């Protein structure tokens, strides 16, 4: 898409939301965000780009609703359909979703971007994304919302990707410690199409988290099969399965707050063991962030230092996965 059109779309997005007519409001709901981000991958080569995302949802009618999410961004000047979902809500807070949308594991995939306190998801989620254990697929999800409507009591998801990978994800959540803290566990079992056949894939994610105006924190542990390395072993080596595990923690607290304005700081760390056969092959990550929030506008600076040891020379650690980003985002 031509850059001029990309920028035009970006400007158009929030106007859509503000320009709702009473008639249109009765049928459709518009929400989304626009953001500008100055990003430095590997702490080098800073790039400035802009992105807008718009979700259009129909009003629920006899329990049914449809939603469409589109994204436009200047990095590659593309307009992309991210989600197309049909949703049926039953009287007892149970819902059935069908469509092209996110397959979720862990609390950062349960929450939307506005609830997340960091610009990007934690390092452990990037591993899950790389393995396609999370991300957009064609899914059928049956779940029960919890009383707050922010999370679920349980869910079960069947997903299939265009690469002919199929999976089932079960999730169960419960409040602990008097309700302030939640615990959730996710288990995914799947089949991946690989060179010359298929392989079984499995991953488990366990999360404790707390969200309130005083502080937010989360501790998460993931364990599962590395499908990429396991495929390599199966095709070229001795057919051995390779497992990974990771532990991550994130804490956010406001340092200043006044009416609708606040400044908060975030700190987190992650440890990832990439191969159960070689514990010295790992990644260690430290994340620091500061964010300013005023109503629906947020400005954040995140810096993340990630050191990864080499699989062949474990004592040698490199920092290519480190990154820093300054983001201004407006939700509408």
């Amino acid at each position, binding site marked *: 898409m031509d850059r001029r059109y990309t920028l035009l779309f970006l400007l158009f997005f929030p106007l859509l939301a503000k320009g709702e007519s009473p008639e249109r409001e009765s049928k459709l709901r518009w929400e989304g965000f626009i953001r500008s981000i100055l990003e430095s991958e590997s702490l080098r080569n800073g790039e400035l780009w802009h992105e807008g995302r718009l979700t259009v949802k129909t009003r629920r009618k006899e329990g049914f609703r449809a939603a469409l999410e589109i994204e436009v961004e200047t990095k*590659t000047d593309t307009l992309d359909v991210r989600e197309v979902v049909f949703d049926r809500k039953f009287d007892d807070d149970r819902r059935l979703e069908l469509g092209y949308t996110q397959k979720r594991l862990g609390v950062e995939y349960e929450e939307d971007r506005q609830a997340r306190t960091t610009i990007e998801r934690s390092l452990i989620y990037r591993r899950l994304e*790389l393995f396609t254990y999370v991300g957009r697929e064609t899914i059928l999800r049956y779940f029960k919302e919890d009383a707050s409507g922010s999370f679920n009591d349980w869910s079960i998801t069947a997903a299939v990707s*265009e690469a002919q990978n199929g999976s089932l994800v079960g999730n169960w959540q419960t409040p602990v410690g008097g309700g302030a803290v939640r615990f959730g566990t996710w288990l995914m079992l799947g089949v991946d199409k690989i060179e010359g056949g298929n392989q079984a894939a499995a991953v488990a994610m366990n999360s404790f988290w707390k969200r309130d105006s005083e502080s937010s924190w989360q501790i998460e542990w993931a364990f599962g099969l590395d499908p990429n390395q396991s495929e390599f072993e199966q095709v070229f080596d001795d057919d051995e399965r390779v497992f990974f595990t990771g532990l991550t923690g994130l804490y956010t607290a406001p340092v*200043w707050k006044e009416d609708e304005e606040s400044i908060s700081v975030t700190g987190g760390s992650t440890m990832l063991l990439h191969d159960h056969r070689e514990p010295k092959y790992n990644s260690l990550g430290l994340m620091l962030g500061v964010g300013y929030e005023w109503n629906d506008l947020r400005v954040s600076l995140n*810096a993340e230092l990630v050191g990864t040891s080499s699989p062949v020379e474990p004592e040698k650690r490199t920092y290519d996965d480190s990154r*820093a980003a300054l983001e201004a985002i407006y939700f509408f």
Partner: protein
Amino acid sequence: MHRGMQLCLAVSLLNLWACRSLPMKEINSYGLQLVSVDLKAEDMGRLNSQVQSKRPVAATIRIAGSMRTQCQVSYAGRSSLDAYRKSFELDFCDQTYRGRESYRLSAQSVDRTMLRSLVGYPIFQAVELKTPEVEAAAAYVNKDYLGLYLLLETVDREFYGKRKVAVREIYKARFGNAGFQRDFLNRLSEAFSVEDKPDNYTFLKELYEALWSIDDDAVFYRRADQLLDIDNFLRYMAAAVFVCHWDGLNNNYYLGYELERQKLVTTPWDLDRIWERTGVFTPQSVISINALLVRLLKIPEVRARWIEILDLLTTRFPLEQLKGEVDRLGELTAQAYAKDPILSRKTQSEELDELKDRMEEWYEKIQDYRRQIAIE
């Protein structure tokens, strides 16, 4: 601004500046063209979950010394899509490399020498065919060494445009069905795909109909000559037979409809199987794969030209020269090959020796064939 915010910003920026001296992964070109692709984990995941549709995702692409762009990559190819080692289509958006806005980073997953295309395309060039530019490359994804790849020009509108040839339809031979067999006369879409114009097989159909409905060879020749650049087709087929490109007589070639001359011109593609299965095939059995070639070779003038082209190729590319080229290219790619996570499981010298043995075996068969047609 709030004082706490100012302090945090200052500390963060100071830390960022200090981090610039951190050790990063070493990237080595191994004496070849260096191509690196960087993708976010989410985009890499999307790429892997959309293998079959080959939908592109955002990426930063760098070709050392030439360009760095933020654009898109997708997986490429057909049979190699299921392979662990996949090819990529690199889209440079508004930037160009060697006059093109896109290039193929080809895994050549069936060629364990990685040299077949490098040795093969110059042979097609020698008979004045337009061929894709190709060079060996050290490929990286997210700073991890992917291995020895080929940076390869694709055959598309940009390919012909760069060579100042205006084309309308571009037919790509596919599924091993494009051998001009009668069975596919009414199923041309199963034998050829058409770029941009999916339903327009009119011109190709006329060529098929001429082949299968005109009995008189002289009449057929005149009609074929109106539709096809016969000399160009013969030069392609002779070079394909010369290198045992058995996968290129009903597959892996392009027919472009040239607007100026209003004729189809042939372009080679995907030489990763040349000099393969030389024990199974003979030049005659390779020729028999393509019914149009078989029919044309029945015409004495065409046959004479065919012999002329074959003689040109055997004179221009003696066996020892071909073997020497394999050795030279083997040396050039040796370091990248030795570090390749998959190829390094093989011994390069053994793979090259096997290729040279197959070249020798095929060369003898070509010479036998040449002697036989001289007698005929």
